[in-house]
């Protein structure tokens, strides 16, 4: 059994999938980072929170 070399189209598809993966990982890092910043500076402390009765 022999494997054929990847056609250019498969390489392009792989590049696109890796690109999307990188974007998603970057998004997770940003959301995590923003959460850490907002929590540590007290945005969600009870005295800073907007509470409605």
């Amino acid at each position, binding site marked *: 059994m022999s494997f054929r070399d990847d056609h250019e189209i498969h390489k392009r598809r792989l590049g*696109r999938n890796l690109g999307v993966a990188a974007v998603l990982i970057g998004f997770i890092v940003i959301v995590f980072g*923003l959460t850490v910043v907002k929590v540590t500076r007290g945005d969600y402390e009870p005295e800073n929170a907007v509470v409605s009765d």
Partner: protein
Amino acid sequence: MSDTYIDIEKESGEAGFGDYFALLKPRVMSLVVFTAAVGLLAAPGHVHPFVAFSAILFIAVGGGASGALNMWLDADIDRLMNRTRSRPIPAGKIEAEEAMALGVALSGFSVVMLGLASNWFSAGLLAFTIFFYVVVYTMWLKRWTPQNIVIGGAAGAFPPMIGWAVVTGGISVESLLMFTLIFMWTPPHFWALCLFMKSDYKNAGVPMLHVTHGRRATRNHIFVYTILLVLISVGVAFTNVGGPIYLITALVLNAFFLEGAVAIWCRDEQQASQDSYKREKAFFKLSLLYLFLIFGAILAEAVLVPYGLGGW
């Protein structure tokens, strides 16, 4: 076998990641990133560096989204112009509907994320910028009036205001002046390009000033807008974002820019075509350097303040 592959390639519309990235107009995005960053850093107040980084990223994504929507709406024109023929949609790499979907998705994403990361005023300003570029400029002004680039230029002038609003949550005289700076810079920058792009816009039926009113009128307009730009950019020196570094930079740059505008104003088409539009091309290149250095000077004033050097 190779023919089969070629057919698959054509029918599948398999675009690479770079093709999607090209939809976001990365060169325009770099200008958006730079001017928004200057607006953010020059603003009075402080935001956490990670929030600042995220905000600039979301502003850039918003700018890219409006670029994708512009390419979707302008695909018919882009096919007719040499300058834009190789863009992903006219080149057949990406379907127009894909560009529309990407543009709409990224627009919503960038506005919501900017609102969550910083404040909703800046997010609203970003939403308005996208609306202005896509609806007011691309859908309406571009195909209707030779003043398209003048009024539409406002869309490219908003990023420093958004950056400023990320820190302050509002608008001020300084942020409006930074807006006006780019607003006045856009017409001479773009019209210089039009002069040496020859018949591109005419072929596409876009009513650019040189198509509707002739090249003489375009040269006159470049000169008048350059004078207005000089007044605004020197005036910025005497506000809170200006200072001696900015003033010297502005005076030198404006002297060169005005000299270029006068040269273009004094030339006619015969002279310009004899040297292959050398002065117009040089003026266009100078305009790019001009904006970079003038905002770089505002940035220099801002970052030197803590060391007692920036500002008056």
